[in-house]
């Protein structure tokens, strides 16, 4: 029994399908822009935003709505991405053998600025229920909310749901949209760069935030099926600090060794490590330490934040899908924004894309709460 990707979608400022996003990334485009007083915030910021006009146009054209309810931007992103993914496969989403899994950090938190906020609608668990009901799915949807690693945790949850035989397929959606809440919060932590982020670079000044929704559908399949398989996943805690990454990279190191062991692959099989690379001083430094401790330093490293910014709950799914798509063409995408290496341990980051014959990779993420996640994916017959 294997776990195989059967459908997917990315809705982002760089496109509304995986293909369109991949083409944008290969063309070296970025969705990040400077805004001087976004939402009247008293500071300038560098973020990427999904354009409302296109989102609304596609939503109305593609998502059949039986009610006149007005959806929030977050809900529209989630529903649109899931709808577009499910159109690609024959899956009966209403089956009790299918489970919906949502990954989000802040969901509808912007509703809290309303005069009389609809408190029940703020939690992402509400959105997950909305989506499951929209597709007439009878099961209780699972929402994973583990800060920035949520998108990978959601896929690991899907993997286990299928491996345990509980379900035959999982629709995994990751999404976050920006609001004064999120931008002011990261600004208060002095984590934001007011220019284009520079993953792993000596002159990096912090992260950029971005909006995206991404969906991957996994299914149980027989051992002969071609395509992308999820081979292993692990989550570990640094047990060190709620907001600062571990100085020894403990949690990330432990996830890396666990997933390499469980996947049965060796360093030689890996085309790349698609890492977090938020461009904060401490995150990138921590990842360089963890990669070296795990003996993975000979493997090329790349990060996607220079194209999209940090898309929070979407990042784990968006970055996984883009890496899969790129490897299908034998390419490890360039790390946009990277110039001169500025971490203490050697890692093979490049501002140019690389050619590769390999079709397997590790996805790595870490987040607030001291959490870390890694997973291994491999393409067969590609």
């Amino acid at each position, binding site marked *: 029994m294997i776990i195989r990707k059967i459908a997917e979608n990315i809705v982002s400022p760089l496109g509304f399908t995986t293909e369109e996003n991949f083409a944008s990334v290969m063309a070296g485009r970025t969705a990040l822009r400077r805004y001087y007083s976004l939402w*009247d915030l*008293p500071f300038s910021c560098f973020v990427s935003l999904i354009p409302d006009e296109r989102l609304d146009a596609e939503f109305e054209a593609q998502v059949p709505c039986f009610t006149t309810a007005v959806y929030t931007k977050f809900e529209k992103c989630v529903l649109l991405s899931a709808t577009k993914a499910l159109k690609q496969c024959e899956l009966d989403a209403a089956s009790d053998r299918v489970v919906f899994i949502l990954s989000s*950090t*802040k*969901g509808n*938190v912007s509703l*809290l*600025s309303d005069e009389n906020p609809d*408190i029940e609608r*703020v*939690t*992402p*668990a*509400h959105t*997950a*229920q909305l989506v499951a009901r929209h597709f007439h799915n009878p099961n*209780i*949807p*699972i*929402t*994973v*909310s*583990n*800060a920035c690693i949520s998108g990978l*945790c959601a896929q690991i*949850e899907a993997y*286990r*749901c299928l*491996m*345990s035989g*509980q379900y035959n397929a999982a629709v995994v959606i990751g999404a976050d949209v920006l609001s*004064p*809440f999120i931008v*002011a*919060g*990261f*600004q*208060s*932590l*002095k984590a934001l760069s007011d220019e284009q982020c520079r993953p792993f670079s000596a002159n990096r000044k912090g992260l950029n935030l971005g909006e995206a929704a991404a969906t991957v559908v996994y299914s149980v399949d027989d051992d002969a099926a071609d395509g992308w398989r999820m081979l292993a996943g*692990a*989550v*570990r*805690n*640094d*047990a*060190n*600090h*709620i*907001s600062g990454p571990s100085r020894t990279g*403990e*949690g990330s190191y*432990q996830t890396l060794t*666990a997933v390499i062991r*469980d996947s049965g692959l060796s360093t030689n099989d890996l085309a790349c490590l698609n890492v977090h690379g938020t461009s904060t001083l401490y995150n990138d430094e921590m990842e360089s330490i963890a990669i070296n401790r795990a003996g993975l330093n000979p493997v090329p490293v790349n990060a996607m934040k220079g194209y999209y910014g940090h898309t929070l709950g979407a990042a784990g799914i968006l970055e996984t899908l883009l890496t899969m798509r790129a490897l299908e063409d034998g390419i490890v995408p360039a790390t946009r924004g990277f110039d001169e290496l500025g971490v203490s341990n050697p890692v093979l980051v490049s501002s140019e894309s690389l050619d590769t014959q390999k079709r397997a990779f590790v996805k790595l993420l870490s*987040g*607030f*709460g*001291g*959490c870390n996640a890694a997973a291994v994916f491999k393409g067969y017959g590609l």
Partner: protein
Amino acid sequence: MNTMVKHTVKLTPNYLEVNGKRVAETVAGESFLTKLYRLYNMEYPKFFKMDVLCKVGFVASEVLLGTEGGERFVPRSDRAVLLFNRHSSLHADSTFQHTIANPDEFYPSPSVFVYTLPNIVTGEIAIRNKYQGESSFILLPEKSEEAMDQAVARAFMDRETTSVLTGWVEAVSETEYEVEMELRMKNDE
């Protein structure tokens, strides 16, 4: 997966129960959480910095792990922390929203913002106990024993995990909270 429950704790604004037995009750006019913190000699000043979701999760976990006994605070990766609720970090979210709502008094608070994620409570418990295993927070549309049981069973699919500190940890205000926490062990027999 064959598992067994070893110790349970229930914490509400009115009482604390350990293994089904009531061990403390609230008295009008006091902070029940601070009282329990002192009663159980938790000696962890970071407690006072926590938001209410972390406070209730922390207090319940301290009581639960004190009941378990044995050596504590030794780094280990075989114990997962897996918690659930419906409202995520709603109380911290509302508190942070207040710090940015007025353009003339716009002072977003970093120490409030760090608590606007539900998995900070799993992180706080992991830090306190040096648990380097899996940690995760799952939101459910409603409290469902079945959904939680299934998620705990999935947590045991990580081959390093031999026990899970798990339960429902909901806190929507300083005076409205509910925690039901337990230790679930892998049954090797």
